[in-house]
């Protein structure tokens, strides 16, 4: 049962251990969701005591890999929120298309579905050849998956519906080859992607971009940390570049929002 066995103080102990031993700082994550992830893992892996759980996390590197994968939520989809991708296709990318070269950062890319969706839109706008997508995540395991461009065939029906609603102009099945239970996506898409670990909490700006997408990552951070990450993005976006967030995330209470202008009704802002 969730919430059964670990209290708030013990959560703090584990988070402190992780910072000390592994250097990952989860102290400013939203408490309720990180607590839920940790208690869930505790019961899933059938630990009998907090002491045993704590010891394993601290000392068993292999187990910590699992811990990291489980507490950072990796759920994602292709063309999630079709209206967002319509705005990218119709409003944002055509503007960037006038540049000689387009650099895009997908921060918190998880297993890559979002980066592939973006690459497909770029391809259909005939911009992929001059674009480069930097796809990053805190969790190395999801990046390994993303690089392969292999997605479960079970989800493809949903994805192709999303794609149609996002005004895709091609036949979605042209982009992949079905192989048993997996869909292998076109290498031409991957050739414009660079995958790398990057921790939004502790790593710095590493380039200047015309578009940064960071969707459904900031809901896991508390307000102060959200603002720090917005500052990091601000330092990484060129003038007149764009910042795109998840459908329930917002720049609203960030002091520098006055330097940005919202694009229509989507969670997309343009730096002035």
């Amino acid at each position, binding site marked *: 049962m969730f919430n059964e066995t670990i209290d708030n103080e013990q959560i703090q102990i584990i988070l402190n251990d992780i910072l000390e031993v592994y250097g990952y700082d989860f102290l400013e994550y939203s408490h309720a969701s990180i607590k839920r992830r940790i208690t869930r893992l505790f019961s899933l892996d059938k630990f009998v005591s907090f002491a045993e759980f704590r010891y394993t996390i601290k000392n068993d590197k292999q187990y910590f890999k699992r811990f990291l994968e489980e507490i950072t*939520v990796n759920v994602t989809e292709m063309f999630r929120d079709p209206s967002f991708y319509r705005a990218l296709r119709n409003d944002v990318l055509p503007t960037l298309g006038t540049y000689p070269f387009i650099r895009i950062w997908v921060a918190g890319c998880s297993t890559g579905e979002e980066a592939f969706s973006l690459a497909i839109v770029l391809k259909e706008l005939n911009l992929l050849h001059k674009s480069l997508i930097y796809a990053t995540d805190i969790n190395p395991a999801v990046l390994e998956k993303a690089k392969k461009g292999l997605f479960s065939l079970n989800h493809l029906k949903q994805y192709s519906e999303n794609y149609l609603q996002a005004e895709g102009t091609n036949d979605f099945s042209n982009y992949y080859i079905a192989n048993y239970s997996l869909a292998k996506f076109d290498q031409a898409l991957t050739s414009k992607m660079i995958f790398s670990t990057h921790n939004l909490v502790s790593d710095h700006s590493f380039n200047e971009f015309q578009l940064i997408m960071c969707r459904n990552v900031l*809901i896991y951070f508390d307000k102060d940390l959200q603002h720090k990450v917005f500052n990091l993005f601000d330092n990484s976006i060129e003038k007149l570049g764009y910042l795109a967030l998840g459908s329930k995330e917002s720049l609203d209470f960030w002091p520098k929002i006055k330097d940005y202008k919202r694009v229509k009704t989507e969670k997309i802002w343009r730096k002035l």
Partner: protein
Amino acid sequence: MAETVITQGCSAVVIGGSAGSLDVLLEIFPKLDKNLPFPIIIVIHRKPGGESLLTDLLQNRTQLNVMEAEEKQPIKAGYVYIAPADYHLLIEENQSFSLDYSEKINYSRPSIDVTFQSAADVYKDSLYCILLSGSNADGLDGMRTVKRFKGKLVIQNPDTAIMPFMPQQVKSNLKADYILNAWEMASFINNLCKV
């Protein structure tokens, strides 16, 4: 069988429902007092899209403020918050909301279990959780947690629910504190006192 004498204070009411629960909400809302001294948080299974439909439906029937819950938003008495489609809704220790886009639970996102459990952790024995009609297994585990924290379990009477399965599960597996018909719920909520 709505009780009029309620000894324990209420700091929040969380309502969960699935198939057949919208009718119940539409019955409850016009009869709610306009100055409730606690918040009402609603988790109803529904498809993504048509975002504001449920909010509008309920807002048109009450003077309470009805809104979709936003991440980090402080939870205030007298307001009605609805879990957004396709996210789990969690409650923080400082009585604000968090959203979570993790795996579906009981094929559902938002899941009633997730919000009940998270609310139990925060509001403890002053929480009232109400489980309405539905044909899903969602809600039972959440109610178990609520009970452990000594919050109150309220279910819709399975005999008069459109889909009895969900409240019946609680009735058979846990002891519900109150079993109410749809038409008794508004006055039950109106009679809950502040902590």
